[in-house]
């Protein structure tokens, strides 16, 4: 696109982002501050993710963007088209043929490979913010690995609901050292982060933080010995492809109580239907 640098951001900004990313990869799960730029979309729509994607995108890359698991929602379509126009890169909806996947709220069902990078859009990078409003204090807690307060939150969940009822943004311990917010992915997706082959990058634009999980890094969901972490999903079968193991969305179909459950990962669902006889 004329008048814009490759992938929208200027090279100095991308250089700054890459330095931040290197630091983030070097300290898995540790939040690194960066100078987030104004982007041509509102905060909360993926300004952090889009900057990280711009910094790692090359001419030979193939980009996939998903929002709530779907390739065809407004946010996904807009960001995909944004990079198609400003960088001229190939885009795809196929998880397997993408080299960079920018995501909001989901990790694809298809297992990612070493050749892929997954970029998460993060609204709130600080896992302790509900417990401790002061950022000075949370930084100190991270520095001293003083995470007892997080377990108090889990204790409260079990005391009140009989189980740990956090269904998304379920806190994880990365590399046995840093407590990390996995962004608002469902707890169902947490096990996929553990020793994932792909590089995982997290960008929070409004909060101006970047963090990362390098390939094959241990990512463990916090729990109690007698109340272990469980990845929960709706106890239904996908109405379109019949999958019994994928994460499902509940879709209301009329105003008389009609509803159906379908795969939240649209690419996963479509490829299952294609390959079915």
């Amino acid at each position, binding site marked *: 696109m004329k008048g814009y640098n490759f992938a929208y951001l200027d090279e100095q900004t991308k250089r700054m982002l890459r330095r931040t990313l290197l630091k983030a990869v070097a300290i898995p799960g540790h939040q690194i501050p960066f100078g987030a730029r104004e982007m041509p979309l509102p905060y909360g729509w993926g300004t952090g993710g889009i900057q990280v994607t711009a910094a790692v995108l090359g001419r030979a890359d193939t980009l996939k963007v998903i929002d709530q698991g779907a390739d065809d929602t407004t946010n996904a379509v807009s960001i995909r088209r944004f990079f198609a126009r400003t960088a001229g890169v190939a885009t795809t909806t196929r998880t397997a043929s993408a080299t960079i996947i920018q995501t909001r709220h989901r990790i694809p069902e298809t297992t990612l490979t070493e050749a892929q990078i997954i970029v998460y859009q993060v609204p709130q990078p600080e896992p302790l913010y509900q417990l401790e409003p002061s950022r000075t204090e949370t930084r100190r807690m991270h520095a001293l690995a003083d995470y*007892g307060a997080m*377990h*108090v939150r889990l*204790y409260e969940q079990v*005391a009140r609901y009989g189980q740990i009822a956090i269904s998304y943004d379920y806190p994880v311990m990365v590399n046995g050292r840093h407590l990390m917010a996995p962004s608002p992915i469902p707890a169902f997706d947490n096990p996929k982060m553990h020793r994932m082959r792909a590089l995982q990058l997290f960008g929070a634009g409004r909060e101006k933080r970047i963090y990362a999980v390098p390939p094959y890094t241990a990512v463990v969901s916090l*729990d*109690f010995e*007698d109340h272990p972490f469980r990845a929960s999903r709706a106890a239904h079968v996908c109405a379109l492809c019949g999958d019994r193991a994928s994460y499902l969305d509940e879709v209301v179909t009329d105003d008389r109580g009609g509803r159906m459950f379908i795969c939240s990962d649209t690419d996963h669902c479509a490829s299952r239907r294609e390959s079915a006889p």
Partner: protein
Amino acid sequence: MLSARGLGFRFGSITALEAVDVDLWPGEVLAVVGESGSGKTTLLHVLAGRLRPDAGQVWYREPDGPRTEVHAMPLPLLRRLHRSDWGFVEQDPRQALRMDVSAGGNVGERLMAAGARHYGRIRAEAARWLAEVEIDVARIDDRPTTFSGGMLQRLQIARTLVTEPRLVFMDEPTGGLDVSVQARLLDLIRTLVRRLGIAVVLVTHDLAVARLLAARIVVMQRGRVVEDGLTDQVLDDPRHPYTQLLVSSVLAT
């Protein structure tokens, strides 16, 4: 186990502590008395490593370890000490408690910070400590916002003692409570401290509290220690004019 030499602390031009020496032996209860503004609470914060003194040093000896200087300790070590071997009971329990977390969660926090990861055992321990401080175990899931002042203070004590610390700092633990509640709380503190063999530095302006709980007493006036000795000796036969004034003002009531 804890000894301080030549402590000095100033708030701007105001001298809060001057040349204060304190020694505390294992299992001993030491009361620090004096009027408001005499430097009692400042002394407590300096001894606990919360405030760095302008002069002097505080030394702490672990059970079978070497003596370490409290203010030279790296922050992680001091924090670990504060959530395991040491405890701090605030005058206002709302400062120490998490008011939006249930009583059980409050008591269990120190256990979880120390690495406990078994919900059932944490809860059982929390229930045991609620019973110890005479809070109905049925209220384990209630938030402290629904508790009375006396219950809040007892909850804070349970939360502090759950890791069975060796040394507890108490800042006016009975302040702001009515007399009958105070009496029960004092009785409770005395019983627990005796049974667990905890050493306590107790700050109070109430000589009756000091007499009831403490074996030794330090009298402070304007940042200086004016008299110290065995509680009964000091209170029955005060030598310093200021101590005499304190004691006589109590007897007058």
